[in-house]
């Protein structure tokens, strides 16, 4: 199969009026990248790094200022309508459902918009309803859905026409842990069964870890990292922090293997240990602790994408 996304020197400027003066803001500098079929790519960067602009250029919403872009073998702007059949986009912040219609009706309309035949519509709708667990609120108007339910319906809407490329812009923003988990599991399964290519922007480290096998990091409209998360963590350090609440005041746990003691509170009732997930696992650290002390409660803090991004940015400046 052909490359799904290929850009060469892709860039986009915006002219903004700043009072009376007009100036040019470079949203995307020069982006050259390839995404192959079946990849799952996390596209990360600070706000304003040019992520949304890139997505809009990949889908034909915006015309690039310079460079070339091919999506699913098509020119996004010139072949927009053909491309629409190959790409599904989930915008975390805007809806493609009809707010006053039940979810079921929205899906039916989208099936019609994408000219799905009756058989294909039924099979695909059933599959999505089942996997995204939409059954319980299929008959509920979209405006009455909880955020988690709505996001699942949005994903179903974007994937109904079985696109080869699925772009998700902040898909888990605002979702509770369980909803995030469900959505990620669905996306993993969708990719496994249909070979769908995923491209997602996110601020959530969990999304990146559980969904993506490749990361693209942009800074000021330029690509500054392209590789695995492990590789990125190695360059900037993506330690996790295990926070344990202990039953009795305990001396600082400084010698647990593969961890670094970050600090203690309340005479050692709460202690913070940093560990590198490549070197060990939370379970192993816990097992090591369990022999020495009684753990009442625990939490694991992950560095968020912002933190990693900040470290990368800092190392570049």
């Amino acid at each position: 199969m052909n490359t799904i996304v290929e850009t060469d020197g892709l860039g986009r400027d915006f002219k903004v009026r700043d009072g009376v003066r007009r100036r040019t803001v470079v949203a995307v500098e020069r982006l050259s990248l390839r995404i192959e079929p079946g990849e799952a790519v996390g596209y990360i960067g600070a706000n304003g790094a040019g992520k949304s602009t890139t997505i809009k250029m990949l889908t034909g919403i915006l015309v690039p200022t310079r460079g070339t872009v091919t999506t699913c073998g098509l020119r996004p702007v010139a072949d927009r309508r053909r491309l629409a059949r190959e790409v599904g986009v989930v915008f975390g912040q805007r809806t493609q459902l009809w707010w006053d219609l039940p979810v079921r009706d929205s899906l039916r309309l989208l099936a019609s918009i994408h000219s799905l035949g009756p058989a294909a519509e039924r099979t695909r709708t059933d599959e999505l309803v089942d996997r995204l667990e939409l059954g319980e609120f299929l008959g509920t108007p979209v405006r009455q859905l909880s955020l988690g339910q709505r996001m699942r319906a949005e994903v179903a809407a974007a994937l109904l026409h079985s696109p080869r490329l699925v772009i998700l812009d902040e898909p888990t923003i605002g979702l509770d842990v369980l909803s995030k988990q469900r959505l990620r599991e669905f996306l993993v399964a969708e990719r496994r069964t249909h070979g769908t290519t995923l491209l997602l922007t996110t601020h959530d480290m969990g999304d990146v870890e559980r969904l993506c096998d490749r990361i693209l990091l942009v800074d000021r409209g330029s690509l500054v990292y392209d590789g695995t998360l492990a590789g990125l963590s190695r360059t900037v350090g993506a330690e996790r922090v295990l926070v344990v609440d202990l039953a009795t005041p305990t001396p600082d746990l400084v010698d647990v293997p593969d961890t670094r003691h970050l600090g203690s509170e309340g005479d050692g009732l709460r202690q913070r240990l940093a560990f590198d997930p490549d070197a060990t696992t939370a379970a192993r650290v816990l097992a090591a602790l369990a022999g020495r002390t009684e753990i009442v409660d625990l939490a694991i803090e992950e560095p968020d994408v912002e933190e990693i991004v900040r470290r990368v940015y800092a190392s570049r400046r």
Partner: protein
Amino acid sequence: MGDLAGLTAPYRAVLGSRIRAQRSYRTSFLLDLSSSVLVGLVELAEVWVVFHAVTELGGLDLAAVVLVFGLADLAFSLADLAFGHCDTLPTYLRAGTLDVFYLRPQPLLLQLVTSDISLRRLARAAVGAVALGVGLAVNDVPWSVGSVALVVLSLVSGVATFAAMFVWAAGAQFYLVDGAEATNAFVYGGRYAATQPASVWGRPLVVVFGFFFPMAFTAYLPVVTLLGLPGPDWMPGWLGWCAPLAALWAWALALLTWRAGVRHYQGGGG
């Protein structure tokens, strides 16, 4: 035919769901309908009030003006029914809904036009239709194949011209942030101008609504030709037959503006 059905299926599906949604709120739908009728009647009453003070307006008597009103109002209401939804573009732009249209395999303009329909506008069309019927009955129309053709041609062209105004206004919204007020002056101002005899317009109005936005061609000029009235100096008698040309011009203007607007939105070499 099968192909046409397939091509129009997406639009019919969306419009069908919008219609069902409106009908499901019966009371508010009925209220909408009756308030629309009321607005239409008030506008018709305006004409009548003017004729309390004068017996003739721009060379037309009350009967002829009712005919102008009916023709223009029916054409506008029908265009409003089908294309009035273009007015929502600024909302769509702000909410980012337009980006969603880009992700669907239909032309943007058709998606915009068919994204909703306000059935209450049927009530306005009914007022216009009644006014047109009354106008045709009370005037001394020299009925012939030609005059029937003129009325039908004018009505169809008038609908097309007003529809083009909505599309033009939508195209202009891409440039004018919150510019709906500015374009409304031409769309709804145009509708108002169209229901009046163009002979009373000042020179600037003649330029704007006579030719640039060809409002005079939607009702006034055809009526003058139909009734064989002496028109204004600048008007040859056959001009009333030129409504289709005016509609073509309006659509050319509308589609150019729309295309430029879309290019502007995408920021490409427009």
